[in-house]
């Protein structure tokens, strides 16, 4: 039946297939979307923060105010210099307006705000608003530290048990069970901390403020544990079997191998897991909002209330006037958080990839 048709250049000539071409271009285009999103996040979070640094007109205002004062009779006895007098003269040609337009007022506020960033007082809503980031920053750091100090040992040890000591059937149950914790919404963890944990710890330790950095830290460790656990477990199980076999062959027993061979070999992965856990806690919003007390205090005491950077955005953004100084400062905080988590992720990737490669390939 098959009449052996000959192969000819004609029958096998290269064909242009439109659907093929379009499919590839379309799919490639969509794939680039994830890069685009990251870039857009970068651009738009910064875009809203940038007006904060526009203070050019504030200088003008300051000069004008000075000029007004001069005109009102303060004799400029010390201003003998002609160069110094030149600029006020130019400005005084226009009558100094009593009320400046909104933009100018904003820039004056911006300038004041910028001056207060490097302080410890966060008082955005007051006659003399202060935007000191240090108490927020240290508050975040304090909570993060507490959370990681709890989550890292628990997560790593649990991962070690799962990968080294648990029989296969148990491992099959443990991994998904602990991963389920990752599926708990942070608002649920926050609610649990607010309603149950806070009172429990207050009864236990008898401190004054019910909601504080410690309660927030413990609650946040619940969010970090599944991350640290999962990544550490992956790192531990990807240690080559030859490592373990070599150790066992040398007469080391099971737990010695796990503790002195497997665990050290997986250090880069474990380190990365802690970095990612830290990133998660640092930017966690709902738990912070609900369990830390939200008072911007600068104190080393773990049982004092704190206010974190992320919680500040969450609590205040809905109430600010679009485009004003406070709004921009909140976006500035967001930009800092973004840079921080971006850096954490980049560092974690660098560690996993770079170190693991070196270790296992002997390069």
């Amino acid at each position, binding site marked *: 039946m098959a009449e052996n048709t000959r192969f000819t250049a004609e029958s096998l000539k290269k064909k242009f297939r439109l659907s093929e071409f379009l499919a590839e271009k379309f*799919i*490639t285009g969509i794939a680039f979307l994830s890069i685009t999103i*990251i870039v857009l996040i970068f651009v*738009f979070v910064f875009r809203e923060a940038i007006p904060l640094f526009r203070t050019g007109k504030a200088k003008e205002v300051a000069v004008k105010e000075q000029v007004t004062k001069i005109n009102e009779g303060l004799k400029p006895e010390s201003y003998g210099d002609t160069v110094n007098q030149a600029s006020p003269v130019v400005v005084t040609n226009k009558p100094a307006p009593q009320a400046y337009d909104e933009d100018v007022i904003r820039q004056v506020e911006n300038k004041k705000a910028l001056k207060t960033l490097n302080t410890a007082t966060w008082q955005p809503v007051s006659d003399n608003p202060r935007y000191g980031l240090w108490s927020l920053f240290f508050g975040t750091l304090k909570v993060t530290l507490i959370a990681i100090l709890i989550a890292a040992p628990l997560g790593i040890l649990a991962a070690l048990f799962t990968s080294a000591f648990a029989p296969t059937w148990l491992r099959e149950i*443990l991994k998904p069970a602990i991963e*389920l914790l990752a599926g708990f919404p942070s608002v649920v963890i926050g609610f649990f901390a607010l*309603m149950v944990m806070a009172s429990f710890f207050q009864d236990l330790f008898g401190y004054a403020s019910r909601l504080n950095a410690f309660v927030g830290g413990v609650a946040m460790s619940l969010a970090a544990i599944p991350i640290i656990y999962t990544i550490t477990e992956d790192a531990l199980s990807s240690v080559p079997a030859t490592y373990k076999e070599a150790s066992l062959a040398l007469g080391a027993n099971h737990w010695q191998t796990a503790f002195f061979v497997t665990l050290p070999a997986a250090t880069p992965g474990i380190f990365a897991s802690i970095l990612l856990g830290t990133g998660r806690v640092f930017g966690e919003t*709902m738990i912070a909002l609900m369990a830390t007390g939200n008072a911007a205090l600068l104190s080393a005491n773990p049982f004092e209330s704190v206010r974190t950077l992320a919680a500040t955005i969450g609590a205040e953004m809905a109430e600010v006037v679009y485009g004003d100084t406070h709004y921009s400062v909140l976006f500035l905080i967001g930009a800092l958080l973004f840079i921080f988590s971006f850096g954490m992720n980049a560092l974690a990737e660098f560690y996993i990839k770079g170190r693991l490669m070196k270790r296992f390939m002997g390069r």
Partner: protein
Amino acid sequence: MMKTFTKIKGALIIGITGLSVMVILGIIAIILVVVIIGGKSQFSWEFLTSFPQDGMTKGGIFPAIYGTVLLVLIMSVAAVPFGTITALYLTEYAKENSWIAKTIRFAIRTLAVVPSIIFGLFGLGFFIKFVGAGMDNAFLGGRLVWGQPNILWASLTMSLLTLPVVIVSVEESMKTVPRELREASLALGATKWQTIRKVVLPGSVSGILTGSILAVGRGAGEVAPLLFTGAAYYLATLPSTLHDQFMVLGYHIYIMSTQSANVDQTLPIQFATTLVLLLLTFILNLIGVVLRSQIRRKQK
């Protein structure tokens, strides 16, 4: 002597690691039990299907459930196709070690670790103030319709957050489609796109499903991105258009437990709402995790 000492140390290490596992599982169990006990009395069919009453001190949470469902539906419509197509690119088109593929993978992982509040800021700055306000100015002569928080912008913001979840799941399952099947199709003279449509996509349906379920589970529980992109404290009516605000379970819990005037009085409602949200996300995640472990088994 030495031997018994080693044995004790071994038992200790296994004990400590085992204890850590127990602590974690214990916490999970305690949260579940406390929320179930606290919310049980209030939890009823009526609670799920009626509106809040008397300034949210009585009644049900139907609008919040409705809003949550609507949110994750719109979110999925955006996230699932985009996630699937990105996964397609990574498994079928990208060269494994090209810088493009590497950059896309890095972007996806970054997207997965960006704090959720940042997505909220982005939603506000991009969707609401840039796209929304831009639409109002261009088509509605500046009348404020799209340039304010609403369910569309909230859902799209959420879809960006859940995009990595979809991509990772789908990619994982696409890799389980055996190379032999792709080759069989290509050897029959099928084009790449035909092979994708007829072999790869049908073979990764379970992965697309898993990714969608996990994404929905994630999206249903996140609150931070919604704080200023569309979630409302209380609404007397259900959202009827894409530019309406909406109530949502997670935000409802947050508001009721921290902002309402009489927190103690509404405690049963709060617990019951938490129970609903926890059950919802728990079940979705359970299904997702089981499906995923089946895919992984196939991979081996």
